[in-house]
C-alpha cells in the first residue's frame, strides 16, 4: 500500500515537473496571444509609465491628463516614479533586462539619446506621427537618432539662473553680483546676517553639477570652436582653465560655509521651503521655478524673487539647453498601440495648453502653437543676455556622466578628492566612454 502511494506520488511529481518545463517553454506565445485578444475586445488595459521625479511635473498635471485619457478611452495609466539619482541607471537596467515599462521618460539631448535608451533596439519609431510636425524643429535632434524621431517632448528650452531673495539683498544693501569676487562678498555678508547664502542639495545628485556645464556659453566665447574640438578629441577639458577655476570656486564656497552645514544631506525639493521661509537667499533654478514656490507657498510673494546669471568663473553669459526630458514608447512592450494613443492625446492642442497651465514651473512649451508665460521683465532681462549652448548638449560624453560628476563633487566637498582630481576624473571618464563606444576620434 505504502509503496504504491510513493510510486503514485513520484509519478505525479515527475509529470508535474515535465509539464512545468513545457509550460515554461510555451508560455510566451500563449500569453501574448491572450493579451492581443484582450486588447482587441476592448477590455481594460493598463499602461505602465516609468519616470524619474523631475520627469513628471510635481503639480501632477500629467497624472490628471492620464485620468482624463482613462475616462475617454478606458485605458488606465499606472505611474511608477523613481528617485532622480537612480532613474538613469535603473531605466537602462530595465531596458536591457526586458522589464521596461510601456512608456518611459528619459532625459533627451542630441548627443546622448543612444547611450541612454538605445532607440534602435528598444524604442518605437514615431517619425510618421502627425504631431511630430507640430513640435519645434530645434528640439527634434534631441529625440532623434539617425534621422528617425523616437519620442515626444514638451518643455521649452532650459536656462538656469540664480534665483535670489530681493528682500534679503535690499536689507543688507547688496547688489546683484556680476563676478566671482562680488559673489563671494555677497555670500559672506548674507552668512554674517545668519541666513544661508546659497541653498544646495547634493542628495539628488544632479543639482551641484550645474555650475560646471551650464556656463558653456562663456567657455565658447573664450575658446572659439571649443565644442567641435572637444568632440573630435583635439583638445580635452583641461584646455578650458575656467572649468578648473569653477570647480575650485565651488569647493572654496563650501569650505567658507556658504551652502550651510547640511547641504550634503539636503534635497533639491526642500529648496522651495528654504527660499519661501527666508532661510536661504539664493538657489540655482530655472526662472519659472518661482511659480512652483508660489503654488506650494501661496502666502509668499514671489515678486520678492529675482534672477541673475551664475557668476561662477566671472561668467556673464547664459547657457541655453535645447534638450529636456522626453517620453518614449517601449517597442517591445505589450501595449504599443495604446501607448501611441496616449501620445496622440497628449499632443492635442487643448491638452498642450492644459499642460502649460498646469505646470507652474514651466515658462514655455516646445510647441510653437502654444504661447509662452514669461513676464515682460524676465523676457527683457533674458533678451539682454548673451547666450550659448550648454556643455552637456554640445559636447560628447558629458551628460552620460552627469550623476557621476555629482558624486565626484560630493567627494570633493568631503575632502576625499581635490578639485584637480575631479577634473581628471571627468576627463578619464570621457575617454573611457569614448573607447567603450569605439569612437573613431579616440581610437586612432
Amino acid at each position, binding site marked *: 500500500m505504502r509503496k504504491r502511494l510513493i510510486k503514485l506520488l513520484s509519478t505525479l511529481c515527475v509529470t508535474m515537473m*515535465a509539464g512545468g518545463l513545457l509550460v515554461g517553454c510555451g508560455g510566451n506565445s500563449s500569453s501574448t496571444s491572450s493579451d492581443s485578444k484582450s486588447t482587441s475586445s476592448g477590455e481594460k488595459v493598463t499602461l505602465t509609465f516609468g519616470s524619474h521625479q523631475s520627469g513628471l511635473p510635481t503639480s501632477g498635471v500629467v497624472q490628471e491628463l492620464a485620468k482624463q485619457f482613462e475616462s475617454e478611452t478606458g485605458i488606465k495609466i499606472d505611474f511608477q516614479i523613481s528617485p532622480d539619482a537612480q532613474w538613469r541607471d535603473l531605466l537602462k537596467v530595465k531596458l536591457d533586462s526586458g522589464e521596461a515599462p510601456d512608456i518611459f521618460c528619459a532625459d533627451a539631448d542630441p548627443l546622448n539619446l543612444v547611450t541612454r535608451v538605445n532607440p534602435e533596439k528598444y524604442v518605437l519609431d514615431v517619425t510618421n506621427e502627425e504631431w511630430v510636425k507640430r513640435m519645434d524643429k530645434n528640439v527634434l535632434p534631441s529625440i532623434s537618432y539617425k534621422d528617425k524621431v523616437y519620442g515626444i517632448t514638451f518643455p521649452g528650452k532650459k536656462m538656469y539662473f540664480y534665483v535670489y531673495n530681493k528682500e534679503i539683498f535690499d536689507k543688507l544693501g547688496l547688489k546683484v553680483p556680476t563676478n566671482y569676487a562680488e559673489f563671494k562678498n555677497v555670500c559672506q555678508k548674507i552668512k554674517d546676517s545668519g541666513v544661508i547664502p546659497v541653498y544646495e542639495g*547634493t542628495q539628488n545628485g544632479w543639482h551641484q553639477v550645474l555650475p560646471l556645464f551650464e556656463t558653456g556659453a562663456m567657455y565658447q566665447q573664450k575658446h572659439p570652436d571649443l565644442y567641435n574640438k572637444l568632440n573630435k578629441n583635439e583638445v580635452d577639458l583641461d584646455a578650458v582653465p575656467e572649468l578648473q577655476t569653477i570647480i575650485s570656486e565651488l569647493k572654496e564656497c563650501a569650505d567658507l560655509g556658504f551652502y550651510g552645514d547640511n547641504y550634503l544631506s539636503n534635497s533639491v525639493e526642500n529648496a522651495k521651503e528654504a527660499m519661501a521661509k527666508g532661510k536661504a537667499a539664493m538657489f540655482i533654478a530655472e526662472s519659472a521655478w518661482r511659480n512652483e514656490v508660489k503654488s506650494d507657498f501661496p502666502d509668499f510673494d514671489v515678486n520678492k524673487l529675482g534672477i541673475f546669471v551664475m557668476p561662477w568663473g566671472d561668467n556673464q553669459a547664459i547657457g541655453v539647453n535645447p534638450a529636456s526630458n522626453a517620453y518614449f514608447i517601449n517597442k517591445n512592450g505589450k501595449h504599443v498601440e495604446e501607448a501611441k494613443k496616449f501620445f496622440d492625446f497628449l499632443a492635442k492642442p487643448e491638452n498642450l495648453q492644459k499642460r502649460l497651465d498646469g505646470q507652474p514651473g514651466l515658462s514655455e512649451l516646445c510647441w510653437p502653437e502654444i504661447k509662452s508665460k514669461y513676464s515682460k521683465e524676465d523676457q527683457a532681462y533674458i533678451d539682454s543676455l548673451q547666450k550659448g549652448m550648454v556643455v552637456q548638449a554640445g559636447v560628447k560624453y558629458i551628460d552620460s556622466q552627469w550623476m557621476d560628476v555629482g*558624486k565626484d563633487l560630493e567627494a570633493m566637498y568631503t575632502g576625499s578628492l581635490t578639485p584637480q582630481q575631479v577634473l581628471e576624473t571627468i576627463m578619464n571618464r570621457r575617454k573611457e566612454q569614448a573607447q567603450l563606444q569605439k569612437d573613431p576620434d579616440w581610437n586612432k
Partner: protein
Amino acid sequence: MDRKKLYPWYFTSGALLIFFLLCFLPGIIGILYSFTDWNNFTDKINFVGFKNYVEVLKGKPEYRAYLWNTVLFTTVTTIMKTVVGLALALLLTQKVIKLKNFHRMVIFSPQVMSYLVVGLVFKSMLHPDTGFVNNFLKSVGLDIFAMNWLTDLKIVFATVMSVDTWKGMGYIMVVIIAGLMSISPDYYEAANIDGANFWQKFRLITLPLLKPIIINATILNVTYGFRVFDMIYSLTNGGPGNATGVINTAVYKEFSKGNYAMGTTLSSILFFALLLLVYFIIKSMENKEVDA
C-alpha cells in the same frame, strides 16, 4: 542496505536538468563573459583575456576601495551580528526575563522588513536637521553627539554597518536561541553541582556546543556581507562620493554604464572570493567535528 529502497538515479534527472539550465549554465556563461569586452554599444564580443581583472586589481583605485569596503563591511557586520545576536539570545533564554516571546518578536521584526524600507526610514531618521536621531540627542542636551551620520566621511561607514547590524541581528539571535534550546540542561546541572559560575558555564558548555550553529551563522553572515547591495544603495547610494561603495554597487554602476564585461568581472571576483571563503569555513567545521 536494502537496495530496493533506493530510487534509480534518473529520478534526479529532472531536478539536475533544471539546476544545470537555470543555475549552473548561466553562472558559467557569466564568468566567461568577464574575459570579453561585452558592452551595450556593439553586438560584437571580443575575447580580451585577463584585461578586465588586471584593470580591477591595478587600474582605477576606486575598484580596490570597493573590494576593501566589501571585506571591511563583511568582517565588521559578521562580528557585530554574531556578538549582539549571541548576547540577545543568552539574555532572552534566561528565566528572569518576562514576555520572552514578545521581546524576541520585536528584535526579530526588522528582519522581515524590506531593505529598501529600512534604508529609507533610517535615511530620514538620520538627517542632520530634521531627523529623529539628532533632534532626540539635541533635546536631551547631548548636542555633541548630533552628527552628520550619512555624510561625514569618518562615521558614514560605521553608520551603515550599524543599521545593517540592527536589521540582521534578530535573525542570528533566533538561530542561536534554537541552538541554545537544544543543549541538554543536564550539562548545566552537573556544572552547577561542581560549583561553576556563569562565565565558566558559558565558556566550557555553551560555546563549544554552539560552535556548529555559530559557524552556520557566520557562513550566512559572510555570504550576505559580500553580496550586500540594497542597504547601501538605499542609505547612501555609495556616497558621499564613493566612500561607501561596495562590489555590488560597482557592478550595478558598470552595468548601467553599459560596460557589461566589467560588471561580470567584478561579480566573478565576488563569486570566487566567496567560494574560497565558504570552502575554508566549512572545512574548519569538519575538522572540529573530527576532533570531537
